[in-house]
């Protein structure tokens, strides 16, 4: 299962999304398309637990918004971004 870390807090900011992990941080700012992906993710992952293929779902969501973009590149960049969120603990794989 994949879920947005219940400890993640976030605020829309002028330059993207400020996201932090409680109780200790860090706080990062997701910018440009990464903020868009985060929004997609948190919208789809609003329930504490989401479907197992949530990452694929998010990738598809991004692709739907950018049909003209090269699919492989979008998928690769999105997965890379989600990996970064996983590494930071902002996403949790159960």
């Amino acid at each position, binding site marked *: 299962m994949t879920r947005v870390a219940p*400890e*993640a*807090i*976030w*605020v829309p*900011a*002028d*330059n*993207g999304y*400020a996201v*932090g992990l*409680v*109780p*200790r*941080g*860090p*706080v*990062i*700012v*997701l*910018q*440009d*398309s*990464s903020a868009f*992906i985060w929004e997609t993710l948190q919208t789809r992952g609003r329930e504490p637990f989401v479907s197992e293929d949530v990452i694929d779902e998010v990738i598809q969501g991004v692709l739907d918004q*950018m049909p003209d*973009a*090269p699919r492989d*590149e*979008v998928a690769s*960049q*999105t997965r*890379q*971004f989600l990996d*970064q*969120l996983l590494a*930071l603990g902002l996403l949790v794989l159960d």
Partner: protein
Amino acid sequence: MPTLDAVDAAPLDLPVRVQLCHAALQHLADQSGLDVLHVKGPAIDSALTDRKRFSTDADILIRPSHTAALQRTLERNGWRLVTSFKAGSFFEHAANYHHDSWGYVDVHRRFPGVTMHPDEAFEELWSRRQEMVIAQWPCPVPGLVDQAMLLTLHAARGENSPRARLDVENAFDRQPEDFQRQVRDRADDLGATLALAAALHELDQHPEDPMTDLWRFYAEGGTRADEWRARWRAALTAQTRARVLIGIVWVNREFVAMELGHEPSSAEMRAAFYSRIRNAVNSLRRNPRPRPVHPPHSPQDQG
């Protein structure tokens, strides 16, 4: 498609950091079973603010009996004490902490102007609490009338600054008459009548109260000498008067450390002490008499 530089450092706006700070604090409070009310800044209902008002730190009111537990929790989780309760203000009401990710928080153990016993006052506020989502986290906040009262009481210490005037305008002056009456009633219930009068420029209705001059100083500003004279008049016992005198010359180690950027040495503390005395004497010389704006107090209150 732009590169996904997700974790690149980017400037974090202060209002954003303050919101995150509130949520982070509530998370800690939830974990530790501590009762916290979020006050001021992003915890203010939109009906009471024009949102042009940004806080530079988060403000919370802790149930007084939970204060020590909250301090331990903060220190275990990367918060560093900047200003202790004792060093903070005349009221010794708030301690300030800093966290590298979340920024600054003022932890209030009571609210200046509320004279009801802090435990009872907190329980009163807690019993009418609401919930506000800050940074996607549910945070308890005082009820709307209590928020208006606290904001107005806070403005009473604003020395008539534009920000304080704006707060009173939004939280009280612009509100319907019935709401204003509820705020006044609530202030009476919590023993905050005098402080509310200070914020509303109605102190002349309380000429006999020994705290009137002090609240006038906080509401309207004045010199250091005015402040100490008002503190002296407000201190009615030998013990509290002694504390006023100590306060005049007492050097706050935390402030000196902040000014110097390092922990002060004994010599630096001595230098700060002598400087404090010089400033106090000079201030009294420049302002030899209290401003003659109030009716006299009873003989024991004359300083």
